């Protein structure tokens, strides 16, 4: 499934989106990301948004969802 990346997460992955395979929950996606991009472990936090809403670790992911990785925000 397609995963959008922003801010430092985009810099770490080197791309504005990636394709994650074999993940069906937010928790699995995070594990997959940490395995593939160990530098993400250094961040203060890492959130996932599903269809533009912050998602808990238990939330399931479907292929048609809009999935985004949200590193620590710093607006304002």
């Amino acid at each position, binding site marked *: 499934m397609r995963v959008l990346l922003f801010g430092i997460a985009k810099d770490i992955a080197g791309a504005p989106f990636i394709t994650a395979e074999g993940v069906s929950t937010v928790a699995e996606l995070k594990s997959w990301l940490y395995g593939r991009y160990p530098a993400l472990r250094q961040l203060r936090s890492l959130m996932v948004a599903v269809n533009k809403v912050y998602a808990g670790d238990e939330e399931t992911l479907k292929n048609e969802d809009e999935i985004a990785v949200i590193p620590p*925000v710093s607006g304002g």
Partner: protein
Amino acid sequence: MQVLLQINTNISVQQALDFVQTPECGGVVVFVGNVRNVTQGKAVTKLFFECYEPMALLEMEKIAQHMIDQMWVKKVAILHVVGEMFPGDTVVVIAAAAPHRAAAFAACEYAIDTLKETVPIWKKEYFEDGAVWVAAHP
């Protein structure tokens, strides 16, 4: 229309003020956030703001709705920039109009505090010797 949300390469305090002002509200509180020229003792040369815009607008909408539903505010404007900015530039404007001023103060402060915690916008600070994504690391 009670809420004005805007994510743009430049934003205007006057626009926020014009939007929220109404003769039923005696008090308007506006927060204006500017780029500081120094962060933790280092001179800032420029900033870059990145935004997950559709989600940012939804999170800004939640903030505005909470102000109206729970904090006695009648009208709200939340404006945030994206792109390259320089010291002194205005990067965020939040205006809240309420019949009573204490409500407008409390709601405006709630809005900027919450925006900084929840709205998916990221700031990269550039110095003479490099750049960092703000608050990314512990």
